């Protein structure tokens, strides 16, 4: 109804929240933290990509994927393969029995570079693959599942099974994947060392920039008619279908988008951390990613970002001082968020802080802030716990 220029929303209250996040990530944290800590934040931020995808997929569309680690890992592995090939020049690996291939292949008696490694000599191919490999897998899973109307708990568990399959596969095929250790010892990106403090800081800012690109894409999708159809689908899937929409196509699209976001996050993770391993792919990391999103607020994009930052910061804090208490805290977090505040931090903020803001700035309540959060909507249709219909 109101739309002057595509960016006019930046001046609204919502725009201020984005600005505040930008201020925090671009100015405050870099000034306040030493390069080591800033690199840690950079690492946490790569999970924010997954969280944004989950907000779109789970919060908006009601599709809970417990396999986002798969896509995060695929993006990360694509980047790691490129970096590993760069590190494995024939000169650098002259002592191996087959020079010019990654060291772990040599240890595992692989004597030639496998075919699927070949294209990762090219950086542009790698960048495309970071998006397309997760996107393609999500597409295949999406077509197979959504066309047959598999949803809810079934979908969640099958994505979890896929996470489990991929982890076992990566660990089992160590000659091709680096096995349980993953792909390690990554030094340079096109000749530029990624291990120095300066490089890590640069990568941090690249990460922040990319995150905002993804946030804007997600926001655009969410505010388009597409976004309203997602919400409508979560609510009354049949009504959407009988309003003339191919529901499966919408689900496939949003699932692919979330997978690609996760892939980008994974690739940035590899760059920030300097290695990639199956421990970021499996069941446990995948479901932890869901809690980032749940804590931040499953309906809020920015909430997802803060959730990823906070949970990971807490995890590092706990693991440094009380490692044995962390699993308890994490477990309590899962239970607490779901039982006590299913709308997460964003919901609490909306409920308690926003009215304060209103009073403080003596504004009228924002245009339509009070739209009730769809608290328990996702599961209104109980019989749908078996929501597998005849195709």
């Amino acid at each position, binding site marked *: *109804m109101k739309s002057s220029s595509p960016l006019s929303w930046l001046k609204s209250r919502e725009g201020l929240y984005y600005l505040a996040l930008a201020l925090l990530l671009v100015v405050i944290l870099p000034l306040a933290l030493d390069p080591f800590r800033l690199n840690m934040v950079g690492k946490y931020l790569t999970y924010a990509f997954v969280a944004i995808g989950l907000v779109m997929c789970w919060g908006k569309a009601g599709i809970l994927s417990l396999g986002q680690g798969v896509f995060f890992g695929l993006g990360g592995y694509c980047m790691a393969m490129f970096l590993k090939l760069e590190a494995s020049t024939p000169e650098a690996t002259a002592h191996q029995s087959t020079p010019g291939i990654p060291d772990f292949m040599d240890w595992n008696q692989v004597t030639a570079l496998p075919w699927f490694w070949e294209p990762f000599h090219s950086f542009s191919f790698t960048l495309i693959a970071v998006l397309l490999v997760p996107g393609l897998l999500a597409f295949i899973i999406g077509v197979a599942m959504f066309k047959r109307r598999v949803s809810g708990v079934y979908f969640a568990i099958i994505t979890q099974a896929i996470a489990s399959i991929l982890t076992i596969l990566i660990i089992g095929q160590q000659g091709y994947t680096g096995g349980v250790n993953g792909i390690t010892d990554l030094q340079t990106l096109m000749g530029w060392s990624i291990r120095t403090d300066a490089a890590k800081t640069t990568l941090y800012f690249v990460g922040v920039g990319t995150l905002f690109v993804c946030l804007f894409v997600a926001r655009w*999708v969410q505010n*388009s*008619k*597409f976004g*309203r*159809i997602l*919400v*409508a689908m*979560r*609510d*009354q899937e*049949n*009504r*959407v*279908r*009988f*309003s*003339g*929409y*191919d*529901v499966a*196509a*919408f689900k496939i*699209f949003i699932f692919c988008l979330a997978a690609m976001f996760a892939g980008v996050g994974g690739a940035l993770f590899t760059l920030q951390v300097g290695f990639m391993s199956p421990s970021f792919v499996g069941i446990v990391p995948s479901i932890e990613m869901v809690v980032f999103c749940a804590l931040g607020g499953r309906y809020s994009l920015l909430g997802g970002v803060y959730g990823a930052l906070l949970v990971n910061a807490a995890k590092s804090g706990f693991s440094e001082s009380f490692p044995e208490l962390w699993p308890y805290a994490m477990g309590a977090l899962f239970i607490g968020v779901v039982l006590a505040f299913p709308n997460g931090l964003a919901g609490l903020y909306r409920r308690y802080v926003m009215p304060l803001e209103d009073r403080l700035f003596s504004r009228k309540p924002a245009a*339509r802030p009070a*739209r*009730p959060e*769809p608290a328990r*909507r996702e599961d209104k249709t109980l019989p749908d716990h078996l929501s597998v219909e*005849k195709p």
Partner: protein
Amino acid sequence: MNKDDFLLAVEGLTVSFDGFKAVDDLSFYLEPQEIRVIIGPNGAGKTTVLDLICGKTRATAGSIRFRGKELTKMKEHQIVHAGVGRKFQNPSVFEDLTVFENLEVSYPMGHTVMGSLAFKRDAAVIEAVESVARTIFLHDLLAEPAGLLSHGQKQWLEIGMLLIQKPALLMLDEPVAGMSVAERKKTAELLRVITRDHTVLVIEHDMQFVGDIADRVTVMHQGKVLSEGSIDHVKNDPRVIEVYLGH
């Protein structure tokens, strides 16, 4: 008359659930601009017939021709695009969206993934939404979340969501069930407006209401057509009386 001259030709339609035939060798024909009401006791298979036409349930056998197209082979959203609109028995509106957005989602544009991303809320859309909203008595409530509407208002909204699609055939499943007397009267008025330029297939129990609107009535019993004709004809059909008044 060739069967493609009818708007809708249902022939030999059968569906069985694990051997139980909910609809059994059913045939009926709808002419353009006709108002047809299906009545019948509970479990007669009325709702299942609508489910079959709109693709929610797949037929075991038989054919459904609609404007020369075979609906039994089409997907749900394709059937909608062919011109069939269906209202469910329980009001199913999008409670988290506003009334405006509910109608806008149903507006027949931007129905593909890409189309919906590029969709713009232009003057034509706003005009169409407002005009339908006036018809369904919800013009003052466009900005309200649909979840806050009363039961009757939700029913009207769902009818409005069908109207904005401009379907050639409207199927309504018990449109006045659960409504107050005042709402019922208003709905009858609404249906009379609608029936001026739509073909309508209605399931209804309220005989007064049926008598008011129906051109022809089809009585279903145990998945089959028991009787068909004008309201007076079926009311006096001994088989119908037998089924309704018991043994």
